[in-house]
């Protein structure tokens, strides 16, 4: 392990920038740290204001602080799976003996990254950590990558998400390319080979490219009819052909016109079978070895997240056995199938934010046996996406197809009525739909109708999740997010 570490150190010595910190940056750190302390006292996990204020004072602050990490930073971006992938990378690095810092999923803009760095720096601007693992919003990716000059980046996938902010999918890919172009020589990029829009991205000079992909035989997918946002070849715009579909546009593809095709991945997940106590046994084939691991995270999307994290760990030279050990310890991240227990009733909270991710959550939900108690809470604040039309691209019809298994379903949040209409047009009878706009009251109502020994599923958008977690915290469940999760 030490040898591995040393190897890494030689490679990235250029990232170490010790020496005294400039007065402007120091003042910015103080401002940031003071504001963090203040927001805590006020009982809020504010991560926007401290970073924004500090960056206004010293725009290059993140670069300076990140440069004081002994190894540097890893940046994780993509539409879905950022949080889980970043958490898995963090877990693997900790297992390998590195001290890591990471941002919370809600603070993934440039100021969130700055807040995280400030929080972990001393009042004199010293960083007591080796590596920063930062999940970064696609929109902020070019700026953050240029600013941090990271060791490497990981891109999970691109789906339709929050078009109100980015315009269209083409522009999201342009943003990712911009970020990759800003990578320093000697760094690496990890890309999903099964996503046709990512595999076509070009790599910069002296940037090592690692790809990962699934090689599994899976039964046909009932959720295939929505969310296939990329149907044409990113090189020549001809319609792509697929030999395997995993979900949405993710699979094994080729262009019949220009011969663009899925690259042979460096890391392949070749088998996944049910193991003991809810664990999946997975086998990953690396260039020079095979790796077996157990993973407790459910769903196909988590196989991709795990694979992305393992690929990043390999790019950093972490040995296989350490990776397996870390994967086994992984628990669901903040609001991603997170579990709480209340008087014999289990509460499962699963963030939904776009059609592809939501369909995966619905699929996992329908795999549960027995009666299903459900709250869907839709907000339309900026962090949720202000346009709720994506709800119509989610296959709620699948739930309506099993409607006798549901008790009253509750629609909540600022867009509760939109969600209620969505349920109605999906095929639920209006009598089965209950609208409770207030998210706190929605939880209470739902718990009342959830019998002992059964599960309550809460599917919130991002800010609805923060609200509902707050309510659960008040009931004595879970801990506030700024105390770590």
């Amino acid at each position, binding site marked *: 392990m030490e040898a591995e570490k040393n190897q890494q150190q030689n490679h990235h010595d250029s990232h170490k920038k010790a020496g005294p910190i400039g007065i402007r940056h120091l003042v910015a750190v103080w401002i940031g740290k003071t504001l963090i302390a203040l927001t805590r006292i006020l009982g809020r996990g504010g991560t926007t204001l401290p970073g924004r204020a500090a960056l206004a004072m010293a725009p290059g602050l993140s670069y300076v602080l990140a440069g004081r990490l002994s190894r540097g930073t890893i940046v994780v971006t993509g539409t879905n799976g950022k949080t889980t992938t970043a958490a898995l990378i963090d877990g693997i690095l900790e297992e390998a003996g590195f001290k890591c810092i990471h941002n919370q999923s809600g603070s993934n803009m440039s100021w969130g990254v700055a807040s995280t760095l400030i929080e972990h720096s001393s009042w004199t601007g010293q960083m007591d950590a080796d590596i920063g693992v930062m999940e970064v919003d696609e929109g902020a990716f070019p700026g953050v990558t240029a600013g941090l000059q990271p060791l490497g980046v990981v891109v999970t996938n691109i789906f*339709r998400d929050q*078009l*109100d902010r980015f*315009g*269209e*999918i*083409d522009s999201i890919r342009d943003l990712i390319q911009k970020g990759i172009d800003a990578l320093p020589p000697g760094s690496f990029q990890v890309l999903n080979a099964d996503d046709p829009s990512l595999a076509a991205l070009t790599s910069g000079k002296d940037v090592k490219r690692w790809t990962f992909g699934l090689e599994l035989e899976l039964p046909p997918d009932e959720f295939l009819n*929505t969310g*296939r946002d990329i*149907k*044409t070849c990113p090189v020549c*715009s001809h319609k792509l052909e697929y030999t395997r579909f995993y979900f949405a546009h993710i699979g094994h593809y080729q262009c019949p016109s220009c011969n663009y095709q899925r690259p042979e991945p460096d890391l392949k997940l070749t088998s996944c079978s049910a193991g003991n106590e809810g664990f999946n046994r997975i086998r990953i084939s690396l260039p020079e070895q095979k790796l077996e691991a157990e993973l407790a995270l459910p769903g196909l999307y988590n196989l991709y997240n795990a694979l992305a994290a393992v690929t990043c760990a390999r790019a950093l030279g972490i040995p296989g056995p350490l990776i397996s050990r870390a994967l086994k310890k992984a628990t669901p991240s903040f609001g991603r199938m997170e579990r709480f227990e209340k008087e014999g009733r289990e509460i499962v909270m699963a963030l939904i934010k776009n059609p592809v991710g939501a369909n995966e959550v619905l699929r996992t939900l329908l795999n549960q046996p027995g009666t299903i108690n459900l709250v869907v809470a839709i907000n*339309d*604040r*900026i962090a949720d996406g*202000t*346009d*709720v*039309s*994506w*709800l*119509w*691209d989610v296959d709620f019809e699948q739930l309506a197809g099993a409607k006798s298994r549901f008790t009253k379903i509750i629609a909540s949040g*600022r*867009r*509760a*009525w*939109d969600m*209620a*209409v*969505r349920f*109605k*047009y999906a095929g639920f009878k*209006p009598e089965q*739909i209950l*609208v409770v706009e207030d998210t706190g009251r929605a939880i209470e109502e739902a718990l009342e109708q959830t019998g002992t020994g059964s599960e309550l599923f809460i599917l919130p958008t991002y800010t609805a999740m923060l609200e509902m977690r707050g309510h659960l915290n008040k009931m004595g469940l879970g801990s506030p997010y700024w105390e770590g999760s």
Partner: protein
Amino acid sequence: MGKINIYHLYPAHLNLYGDRGNMLALCRRANWRDIEVNIVPVGPGKEIAFTSCDLLFMGGGQDSDQKLVAEDLKRRHREIQKAVQENMVIFAVCGSYQLLGHYYTTARGERIGGLDIVDLYTDAGRGRLIGNAVISCSLWDPPRTLTGFENHGGRTFLGPGVQPLGTVLYGFGNNGADKTEGAVYKNIIGTYLHGSLLPKNPWLTDHLLRKALAFRHQDTALRDLDDSLEEQAHQAAVNLAARRTHK
């Protein structure tokens, strides 16, 4: 009872902003009244016999898809033009609304010729016009509100022979300047509003269904439905647009 043939144009390419919701609203509200709906997906390159189409639905697409679609559509120009003159119903949202006009300019400055069916054109503008919108629509007397979400870079301007779909109460509308939103020409309705538009504005859905039934001289009387959920959703969305808060 009645029967409506809905042609869904390029469903794989024009499906950007919850267009599925619009199709679902048309189907459900017809089915709830025992009106049969037959959906015909039309892909690029396929022959279309517009003679059996009652309602043509065209959704929104990304620039790259829209260009592909524009090329294909132009080859069908004459058939569509003829059907329009015969009062076929067309409902076009966002990108395909732009395609109905003389031309539109993409964000990258490329000018793409349209179908020339409706007297309107679309120029590129600085920044996208994004947010909740409410318009007052004179398809009814007294006018009723329509509410949806708009997200477009193009600025659309209507020629003299074309009526706007409505007057902007909240939001930007066609170009952010003249308070018009959408266009009505013969039995064509074009709009920038999605959200999806039809589920939350059931009177517009019913208007389209009636027009589609009338096209082939079927009985246009529609049984009343319990729209309390839809009306609540409509009102809640109008209130949000009026407050314009998204923090």
